[in-house]
């Protein structure tokens, strides 16, 4: 292969002949394309494409040449090709016979109003699907209460281990640190007023009532909600869910209810555990920075933090659990088609469950405030 070839080029000679030369191949034809775009085309005359100088040719070159022909025709020239080798001519006929398909006007993807309309309708449809899923889960739960022996205890206990027990270290560490942070921030202000002992109220009430349940819920949403979506979604992609249905088994009963139940048990327990470690973190800082000893802290804790704060915090946890588990499973079922969808819906499940958890928490705060709790 010692043949050497000139770079691709094109020159207009005397306004009548377009001399093409060199390698008209995909990797080399780009300069020709640019030259043709900037060329002063002769108007309304006979134009001869002299292609005898073309030394290499592929479909890329053929497309560029054909585009030039069409451009010349559009400007009213009468075009003819000279000196095209027969195998190159075959490529040209390949392009010309498919030209209609190449330039076919493809309806663009809808935009503006059309897109808004489809967006609204898909969101509405999704909301309805969500409601359907909620309804199906509820009826499955009712059926299960009627016949508790059908509960998948094994899978429920497995979930409890994965989503409860295995989450202990991270939950504990995080709430401990949150307790430390709250106490630190409070210590600064309280010391100014000499009201060191109120650190107990600050740490106790805020952690027990709001922060520990929220932190636990957000952690579990990221840890377990996403896992539920990914697990169920993968099963859907690999048609395992369809296989279950052909055996007459309900995926909701088999996959959703055990997970919901496990989380309803696990999250309040995790919250209680988080309460303990959070308060402990606050206690450490109190004794360290504010000279409030452990005994002083605990005796004040008894009178300052009413039992209802603990109960409100723990009481919210099962609702958070239901939200997280249902959103995770629902997003898993929503996965259609390919593997890329799994990632998308996993992300959505985390964002949505955290969003709903916080909304629910805000509603609780408002209602409890009304009832003076």
């Amino acid at each position, binding site marked *: *292969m010692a*043949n*050497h*070839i*000139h*770079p691709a080029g094109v020159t207009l000679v005397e306004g009548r002949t377009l001399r093409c030369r060199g*390698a008209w*191949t*995909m*990797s*080399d*034809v*780009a300069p020709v*394309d*640019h030259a043709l*775009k900037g060329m002063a085309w002769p108007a309304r005359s006979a134009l001869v494409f002299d292609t005898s100088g073309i*030394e*290499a*040719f*592929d*479909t*890329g070159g053929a*497309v*560029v040449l054909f*585009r030039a022909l069409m451009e010349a025709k559009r400007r009213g020239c009468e075009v003819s090709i000279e000196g095209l080798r027969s*195998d*190159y001519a*075959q*490529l040209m006929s*390949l*392009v010309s016979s*498919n030209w209609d*398909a*190449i*330039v*076919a006007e*493809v*309806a*663009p*993807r809808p935009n503006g109003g059309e897109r808004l309309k489809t967006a609204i309708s898909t969101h509405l449809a999704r909301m309805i699907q969500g409601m359907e899923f909620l309804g199906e889960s509820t009826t499955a739960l009712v059926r299960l209460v009627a016949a508790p022996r059908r509960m998948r205890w094994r899978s429920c206990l497995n979930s409890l281990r994965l989503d409860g027990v295995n989450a202990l270290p991270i939950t504990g560490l995080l709430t401990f640190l949150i307790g430390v942070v709250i106490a630190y921030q409070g210590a600064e202000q309280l010391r100014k007023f000499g009201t060191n002992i109120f650190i107990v109220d600050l740490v106790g009430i805020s952690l027990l009532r709001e922060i520990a349940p929220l932190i636990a819920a957000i952690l579990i949403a990221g840890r377990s909600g996403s896992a539920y979506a990914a697990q169920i979604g993968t099963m859907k992609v690999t048609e395992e869910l369809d296989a279950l249905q052909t055996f007459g088994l309900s995926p909701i009963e088999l996959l959703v209810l055990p997970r919901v139940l496990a989380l309803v048990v696990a999250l309040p327990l995790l919250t209680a555990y988080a309460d303990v470690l959070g308060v402990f973190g606050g206690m450490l800082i109190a004794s360290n920075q504010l000279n409030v000893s452990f005994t002083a802290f605990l005796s004040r804790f008894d009178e300052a933090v009413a039992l209802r704060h603990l109960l409100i915090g723990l009481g919210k946890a099962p609702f958070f659990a239901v939200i997280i588990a249902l959103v995770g499973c629902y997003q898993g079922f929503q996965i*259609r*088609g*390919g593997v*890329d*969808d799994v990632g998308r819906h996993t992300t959505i499940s985390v964002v949505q469950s955290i969003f709903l958890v916080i909304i629910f928490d805000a509603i609780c705060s408002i209602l409890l405030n009304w009832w003076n709790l």
Partner: protein
Amino acid sequence: MHELPPTLATAEKVGVPVIEVSHVSTRFGQAVVHRDVSLTVLRGEVFAIAGGNGCGKSTLLREIIGLLTPTTGTIHLLGTDSRELTQSNGRPLHRRFGVMFQHGALFSSMTLAENVAVPLREHTSMSADVIRDIAALKIALVGLPPDSAIKFPSELSGGMRRRAALARAIVMDPELLFLDEPTAGLDPMIAAGFDDLVLNLKRLLGLTVVMVTHDLDSLWRIATRVAVLGDGQVMGVGTMEELARSEEPAVRSYFHGPRGRAASLTHAGTASQRD
């Protein structure tokens, strides 16, 4: 002045070896996949690699295109050691072959037209509208309607996705086209259409085709030569007629099973239409 680029101009020399696999052995840990496999693929032919499940066909294909490295032995692809493909100087070689993966391997975040245009955008400096036209030409050549260009892979059927993957594999006018199980999972009508499409493109673009397949019908219809792998070794190489007459037990059992006989009866008289 520069070296003749790899184009149709060079595709005329039929019969020159384009792939030389010599004494390749492959082991994954304890498992032996190939033992001393040697093959030669000639320019202009449709070379098929056949054999039972798990006999290392796809592994061999992946070694030829440089995705895997054989444990011992060498593979030359268009005169270059395929190990160079993994290095940065393998770039020019990458333009000279196209690969169609079994499940299409289309990039799911891009439309069909964008998928097909990826090699053009990465390897050439052509303007966007020329790239669009070349991509549209290749989409038309594989028989997909123009409006499929704006669809995403998830919106295409299995057969269409296969065609789209083929369009992407041939977009750079490669000299060599690799097909991994091109007709697996397609219905007989679409599979036959796909066989015709491959033959047609081979004729139009002067391709050399290497395919891994189980499909006895497409072996009879389009393969110039077939290598049968079994037990990690090459059991036989030759045209389908030669292999069908072979006395080698492993080859006989492959081609003379109930399906093999049916396919050979159907194609006995039509084998000459291959070119």
